[in-house]
């Protein structure tokens, strides 16, 4: 079943330059994959909406805020899932989560096709919190089952809602992550920390603080993501292709390497009060310049100081 999208036929260059952040989930999928190759499973016409939102008198979305299906990337088959960060903050509910769980279990059984996870989420959907939390647990398990079967699961993070809460844990289960500067990754969001611990602990209105603590640049520099992309669909596509060819299989050695890199991080940066101190410790001579650095210069700088062994996950 094919469903048409907003299809302004863009010339190749414009298409590659489309902002990942601004694009909808459907546009991201369409522009990321080979033209016309995407096939959706349980698309909007199936109207499998959340059964729980009406309890709260809230509007539903026909796809419950996630698109799952398969297509081709550079000629090879891939599974793909994309969250719509503007609908309920991309949050996980029962149906939303189950679509992703089903896709990952299929990838586990098929074995030969990788999964691209376009994460854009605030975490658990409040109105169906128990179902959402459980869905995230099922997804984490399904990711590890798929990876254990030899499937690569690549997370792509750079959307409006970032990747928060349980979404951050799913990201941590992926084989590899592509992140853009806009791609914030965290468990507790800025507002959650401020509400629970006070504004002295974390001022959620200090946007610079939010970006340098949780944003893509810091995540990539310390090894929280494997590739840094400029905010374009073309850059995300390039990075995903590169990671698909370079990412290692999953096993006990991966976990041991990750244990080492995470312990090493605590030793190196555990006393740093701020991201600026981490970057300075990491060898950046002028850490204050990082937030304003254009992507190409930032990547060049990062390539000099990052160690690839840090990416085991």
């Amino acid at each position: 079943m094919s469903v048409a999208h907003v299809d302004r036929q863009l010339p190749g260059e414009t298409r590659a330059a489309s902002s990942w952040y601004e694009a909808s989930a459907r546009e991201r999928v369409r522009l990321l994959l080979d033209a016309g190759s995407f096939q959706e499973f349980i698309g909007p016409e199936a109207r499998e909406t959340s059964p729980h939102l009406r309890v709260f008198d809230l509007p539903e979305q026909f796809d419950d805020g996630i698109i799952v299906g398969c297509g081709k990337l550079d000629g090879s088959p891939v599974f793909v899932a994309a969250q719509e960060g503007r609908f309920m903050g991309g949050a996980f509910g029962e149906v939303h989560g189950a679509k992703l769980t089903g896709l990952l279990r299929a990838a586990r059984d098929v074995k030969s096709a990788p999964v691209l996870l376009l994460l854009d989420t605030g975490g658990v959907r409040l109105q169906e919190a128990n179902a959402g939390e459980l869905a995230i647990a099922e997804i984490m398990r399904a990711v590890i089952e798929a990876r254990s079967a030899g499937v690569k699961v690549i997370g792509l993070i750079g959307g409006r809602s970032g990747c928060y809460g349980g979404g951050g844990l799913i990201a941590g289960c992926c084989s590899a992550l592509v992140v853009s500067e806009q791609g914030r990754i965290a468990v507790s969001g800025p507002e959650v920390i401020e509400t629970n611990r006070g504004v002295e602990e974390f001022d959620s209105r200090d946007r610079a603080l939010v970006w340098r603590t949780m944003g893509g640049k810091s995540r990539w520099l310390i090894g929280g993501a494997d590739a840094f992309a400029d905010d374009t669909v073309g850059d995300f596509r390039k990075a995903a292709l590169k990671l698909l060819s370079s990412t290692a299989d999953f096993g006990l050695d991966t976990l041991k390497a990750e244990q080492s890199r995470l312990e090493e991080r605590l030793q190196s940066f555990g006393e740093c009060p701020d991201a600026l101190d981490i970057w300075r410790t990491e060898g950046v001579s002028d850490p204050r310049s990082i937030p304003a650095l254009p992507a190409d210069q930032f990547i060049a700088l990062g390539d000099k100081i990052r160690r690839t062994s840090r990416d085991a996950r």
Partner: protein
Amino acid sequence: MEDLTFRHTTLKRASGLKPTAIIGVVASGNLEVLVERVMPDAECLLEIRTAAEGFGDVWEAVVADFVERYSPGGLKFSINDGGARPDTVSLRLAQAARLMQEDDR
């Protein structure tokens, strides 16, 4: 939430071959429109679920204007609305109708 339904007869069948199309996102001030070619050629149906209650008259006017301009015969429009303004609704309906005019793929 409020449910609204509008059924119109149209002068002609909507051109194109596409069986379905979707546009928009359900968010504050935004809406999604799902279009399906499932109606008789001289009819169109719009089913709306909106978060903004009490605007039936406005919807009626926006829909009537849209039907007159586009004559979307044969199409069913299913709309989830997060409280969009009339101009946004008009824009999305027009985008949805244009998507259906494209060839399939």
